[in-house]
């Protein structure tokens, strides 16, 4: 009987994703499963199915976090430990803590329901390496039960040098360190204290020890051949300019990817920054900093700052389907072959998407223009325009020019459509969130939001419904250039957009 239920949920998962028709390709210079030209085959092999390390993979593959690590060894001004970290997880909501045994069961349950779930991360809600016994016990149980799942962890770095050998021994390929500064004078304004050698250390000394440990840990990871992503929280007026220096420092020590995230600091989260009025960056400030660092190394722009118990594709949260109570009732049979077969279909679709994009790019080859536009896309995944405007809880933003389409970020929004009725108050916040875009691509849109978007200078586009994102936006751009030439459109500076501060609550 549970076999039947399993196939039902599998089917539901597939339908939910619009999968079986999914497809994708590579990012920027990337072409196919051989990987991008600027990446070695070994590195590509490690990242190609990891949604947090490859923008391209995040349209197709899902990850999950298990909250087995509640303790932390440092205090950050953007975090309130009454809740989970406000900046690297959904604010205002506490993760359900699990024992390693519960976590292992949960991973098997999710992997059987969501066959494109390829990555298991431990990210907290505290620091995984401040809870080494629980973290490594979880890795041990999962690597035995589900050997095809990639393991990764995310740390503040303070204890990292003590654990690199153990991390290596579990074949962990990916470690993320949150590095917000390389100068203690900057760090003292971000970290009130650390717990170090049985003492609470404060001020500039705390930041000095932390940065030394982070740099040492990063160097040790690089030497051990473990890919390292660096997360940085952009805090305007405190470390925004300094992050260019951080970028250089981590690149020189072998970091693979840099993820600069906007500060989240709503007062209701009760963090120091939330209460003292420290603001987060605007969309344009964030993008300028990411652009400035991009020449130096790969930048991650698709981070959703997800919860320590997140489940699903980045940007969706299916954790409510897998509460401890529900998992314990589920009978799970782990079928590695079924997962492999499903992932092969995903791979075929990825190839198809790349082919479609490349064909579209050829048609653009004759064109040279300095015009660049930003467009917003409503998608449920698979690299297609397959979400209704009113059902989108985020829009993906692409920058398009004659050199192609580039994913440059995403904007969370409140659902416009609640139970079939458009929420009048939600629409202005959606417009502010994508105000820097000239068009929004959707599978479908109602008459009312269509008119208001048009009045705000954002063109609603539904004629590419269910087609590939990159191919469609390039095709739109080509026509857009034609409309400029004919005088139909006069390009204007669209200005800035808002980054949403409130809790990200999926309906």
């Amino acid at each position, binding site marked *: 009987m549970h076999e039947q239920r399993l196939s039902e949920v599998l089917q539901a998962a597939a339908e939910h994703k619009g999968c079986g028709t999914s497809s994708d390709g590579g990012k920027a210079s990337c072409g196919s499963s051989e990987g991008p030209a600027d990446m070695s085959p070994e590195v590509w092999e490690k990242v190609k199915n990891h949604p947090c390390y490859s923008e391209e993979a995040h349209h197709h593959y899902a990850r999950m976090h298990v909250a087995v690590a*509640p*303790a*932390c*060894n440092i205090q950050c001004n953007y975090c309130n*430990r*009454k809740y989970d970290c406000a900046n690297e997880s959904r604010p205002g909501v506490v993760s359900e803590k699990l024992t390693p045994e519960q976590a292992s069961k949960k991973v098997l349950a999710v992997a059987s329901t969501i066959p494109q779930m390829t990555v298991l991360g431990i990210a907290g809600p*505290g620091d995984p390496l401040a809870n080494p016994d629980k973290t490594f016990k979880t890795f041990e149980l999962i690597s035995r039960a589900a050997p095809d799942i990639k393991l990764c962890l995310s740390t503040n770095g303070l204890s990292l040098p003590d654990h690199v050998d153990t991390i290596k021994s579990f074949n962990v390929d990916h470690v993320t360190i949150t590095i917000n500064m390389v100068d203690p004078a900057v760090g003292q304004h971000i970290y009130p204290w650390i717990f170090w050698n*049985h*003492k609470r250390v404060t001020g500039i000394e705390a930041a000095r020890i932390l940065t030394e440990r982070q740099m040492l840990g990063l160097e040790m990871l690089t030497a051990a051949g473990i890919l390292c992503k660096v997360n940085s929280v952009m805090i305007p007026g405190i470390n925004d300019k300094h992050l260019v220096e951080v970028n250089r420092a981590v690149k020189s020590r072998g970091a693979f990817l840099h993820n600069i995230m906007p500060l989240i600091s709503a007062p209701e989260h009760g963090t120091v920054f939330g209460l003292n009025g420290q603001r987060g960056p605007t969309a344009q400030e964030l993008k300028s900093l990411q652009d400035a660092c991009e020449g130096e190394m790969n930048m991650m722009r698709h981070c959703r700052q997800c919860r320590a118990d997140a489940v699903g594709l980045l940007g969706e949260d299916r954790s409510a389907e897998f509460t401890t109570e529900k998992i314990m009732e589920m009978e799970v049979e782990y079928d590695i072959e079924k997962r492999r077969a499903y992932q092969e279909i995903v791979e075929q679709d990825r190839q198809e998407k790349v082919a479609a994009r490349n064909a579209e790019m050829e048609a653009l080859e004759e064109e040279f223009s300095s015009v660049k536009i930003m467009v917003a896309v409503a998608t449920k995944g698979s690299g297609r325009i397959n979400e209704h405007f009113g059902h989108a809880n985020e829009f993906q933003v692409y920058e398009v020019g004659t050199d192609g389409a580039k994913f440059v970020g995403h904007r969370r929004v409140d659902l416009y459509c609640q139970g079939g009725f458009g929420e009048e108050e939600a629409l202005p916040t959606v417009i502010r969130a994508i105000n820097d875009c000239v068009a929004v691509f959707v599978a479908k849109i109602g008459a009312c939001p269509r008119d208001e978007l048009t009045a705000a200078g954002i063109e609603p586009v539904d004629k590419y419904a269910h087609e590939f994102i990159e191919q469609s936006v390039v095709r739109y751009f080509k026509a857009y250039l034609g409309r400029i030439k004919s005088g139909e459109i006069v390009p204007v500076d669209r200005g800035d957009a808002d980054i949403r501060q409130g809790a990200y609550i999926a309906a």
Partner: protein
Amino acid sequence: MSYKIISSQCTACSACEPECPNVAIYEKDGTFVINPKKCTECIGYFDDAQCVAVCPVDNTCVIDNSYPRYQAQA
């Protein structure tokens, strides 16, 4: 002679539990508590009470005045 944890403020993060040199801290009903019979206020082990130093919520691990202060053994 003991610290106590104000349970309404405890986030149950468990950071204090492994730091206690007396193994006096344990989980009970969703938060952590200190066994006053075992607690030595870290005297004889560390300069600072470990639970106080590591706790993310200030003024949550506090001296329990219903017990006399701990005296170092001669």
